[in-house]
């Protein structure tokens, strides 16, 4: 399985990440991207700040890749990019992309990747409002099907 993981301050591109998965035996590519929303609980968010424990985050992404390779041995390649720094509304904070011979593995592994990342990637998000700011932690009980940890 080929892998590509990055924690970056630059804008993310689905197309660029998917290009890293290209393989003539890949019949299926699934992607997930998380984007900065304009509201939280009805309150207008102006922008977001993401902070990472970067060396550990890179290690955790590699660990998630290994988990996926074990659970879905047919997966051909996986690429994950997480952005840090200031993000404007509508910008992508994370992209997970998986290629496989068939759609089932690609979709399941992609769902698993984003679920695991939200649970264990050492990254913190601050929402900035007109009148304050808050560190927003991920809530669970909303995992995707097929995405529970092993």
């Amino acid at each position, binding site marked *: 399985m080929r892998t590509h993981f990055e924690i970056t301050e630059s804008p993310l591109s689905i197309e660029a990440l998917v290009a890293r998965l290209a393989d003539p035996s890949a019949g299926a590519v699934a992607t997930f991207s*998380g984007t900065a929303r304009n509201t939280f609980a009805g309150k207008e968010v102006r922008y977001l700040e*993401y*902070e*990472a*424990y970067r*060396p*550990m*985050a890179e*290690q955790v992404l590699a660990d998630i890749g290994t988990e996926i390779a074990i659970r879905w041995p047919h997966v051909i390649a996986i690429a994950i990019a*997480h952005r840090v720094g200031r993000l404007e509304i509508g910008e992508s*904070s*994370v992209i997970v992309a998986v290629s496989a011979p068939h759609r089932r593995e690609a979709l399941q592994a992609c769902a698993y990747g*984003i679920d695991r*990342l*939200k*649970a*264990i*990637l*050492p*990254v*913190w*998000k*601050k929402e900035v409002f007109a009148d304050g700011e808050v*560190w*927003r*932690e*991920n809530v669970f009980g909303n995992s995707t099907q097929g995405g529970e940890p092993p």
Partner: protein
Amino acid sequence: MTPPGTFNVRLFGPAREAAGAPVLAVELDAPASASEVIAALGRACPALMPLLPSSRVAVNRAYVEAETAVEPGDEVAILPPVGGG
């Protein structure tokens, strides 16, 4: 008697902000458990107290359990609940 050691603890997100610094040093007999390092951190910086019960500890860039032994040269970090994705 074990020798005293300096543990440099990295802080992130709300913990970094509450402490007003990305790294705090605490003095403890070495080796110490992860939970002993955390307890010392709370005494050294009371502003961190509310965050510690929900935080996890990483040693050398991997999550560890409370009883894991930590040496002064280890890379220790306090990880409040994450918000990535």
